[in-house]
């Protein structure tokens, strides 16, 4: 199979990730943060090492800032539902995923409102103007993706952080698509809440994500309450992260697998991964641009303005049909709306969706050539 659906989840996983998951099941089988015996302590130590590595990778103040979550979606929900109060207002971009949109719709029941700011791909100043116009005195939070999961467009999150802070608001960045490719430093960027998937560009297993806090002294309210193994006589959740956000037994295989994925990314270097994948995708773009029935919607992929995500349609064929035909030929792509209706509405593809191609560290040029050949015959 030629796997080009890495925007949904990277595959295959590096050998070190598979080994780490297996090691979690064979050697680190105790519940971390619960017992005091040797395997509980060694498991907890292993989890802590991953936490510390992630904190360093993202420029966080310390391991306590890294809260493991089941995924990026839950991390975003923690921020939205833990920060916002009735009467608050939120500004989001017109590229947001349903992980942002749907919780905000739900929060409308609590008189929390939001405004969608127009972005202008390739023009950060114009994008900033769009956000500036959307800000209000009651705006408490700016939520934006670091890069569109449909079009690959990057947003100027550092400038948006400065804007949010100037209005007394905070910023939450959805880095589901960008973590592992785009260097992120919480201390420098001003990002208050960073939400990441562990199973995409960080090459971990599914079922693990991150909420990284810039200020651990002022954490959001909780989304889920329950046992943490500590301060058990208190009826309230612990005040301090990460335990505050980690009720229930942690996903140790996921966490240790994510740690190994991070090691893989660090060894290759995020910038090098980004450059290599972008170069591959740019070649594919050139080939597809010569196919008369293929419609491309974005400029040629190039750093630093975009991530290696390419969406297109084939004239006369619904995107799902293109995906079905490619699937029959052993090529895995993602079709439809990619859970991001706003992003499709923006470029006029809301009705039919698009076909999305995302390479990863293991994608070979020949595989993209095969895709282009298949498309040329449709």
């Amino acid at each position, binding site marked *: 199979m030629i796997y080009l659906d890495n925007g949904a989840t990277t595959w295959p996983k590096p050998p070190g990730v598979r080994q780490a998951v297996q090691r979690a099941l064979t050697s680190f089988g105790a519940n971390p*943060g619960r017992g005091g015996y040797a395997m509980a302590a060694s498991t907890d130590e292993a989890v802590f090492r991953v936490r510390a590595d992630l904190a360093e990778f993202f420029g966080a103040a310390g391991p*306590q800032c890294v809260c493991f979550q089941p995924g990026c979606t839950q991390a975003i929900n923690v921020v939205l539902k833990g920060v916002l109060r009735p009467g608050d207002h939120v500004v989001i971009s017109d590229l947001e995923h349903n992980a942002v949109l749907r919780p905000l719709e739900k929060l409308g029941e609590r008189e929390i409102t939001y405004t969608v700011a127009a972005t202008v791909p390739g023009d950060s100043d114009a994008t900033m103007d769009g956000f500036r116009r959307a800000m209000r005195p009651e705006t408490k939070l700016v939520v934006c993706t670091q890069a569109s999961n449909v079009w690959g467009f990057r947003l100027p999150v550092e400038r948006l952080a400065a804007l949010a802070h100037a209005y007394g608001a905070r910023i939450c960045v959805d880095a589901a698509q960008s973590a592992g490719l785009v260097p992120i430093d919480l201390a420098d960027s001003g990002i208050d809440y960073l939400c990441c998937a562990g199973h995409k560009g960080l090459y971990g297993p599914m079922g693990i994500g991150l909420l990284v806090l810039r200020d651990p002294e002022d954490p959001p309210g909780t989304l889920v309450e329950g046992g943490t193994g500590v301060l*058990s*006589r*208190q009826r309230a959740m612990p005040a301090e992260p990460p*335990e505050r956000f980690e009720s229930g037994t942690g996903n140790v295989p996921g966490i240790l697998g994510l740690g190994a994925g991070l090691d893989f990314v660090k060894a290759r270097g995020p910038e090098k991964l980004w450059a290599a994948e972008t170069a591959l995708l740019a070649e594919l773009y050139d080939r597809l641009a010569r196919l008369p029935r293929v419609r491309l919607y974005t400029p040629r992929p190039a750093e630093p303005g975009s991530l290696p995500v390419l969406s297109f349609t084939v004239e006369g064929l619904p995107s799902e049909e293109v995906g079905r035909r490619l699937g029959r030929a052993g090529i895995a792509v993602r079709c439809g709306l990619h859970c991001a209706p706003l992003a499709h509405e923006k470029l006029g593809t809301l009705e039919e969706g698009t076909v999305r191609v995302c390479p990863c560290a293991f994608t070979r040029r020949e595989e993209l050539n095969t895709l282009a050949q298949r498309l040329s015959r449709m």
Partner: protein
Amino acid sequence: MAETMFVLGGQTASRRAAMLLRRKGVAAQVARAPQTPGLGCGYGVLVDRERREEALRLLRQNRFRILAVQEQEESG
């Protein structure tokens, strides 16, 4: 050996504290804390009682929230 346990609550805070103390030359280990009145289960760092004041100063300087201090005698 008589030891002092600084109960810090969570295992993450306890591991951070132990790292800090070791970096400053104070031997420290993370351990499960005895049940603490009003708090219940938790973790903390154990240090040699002779280093208690030094450890306490370092933890306070680095803004660790010390929930309880317990003196422990070597058993067995």
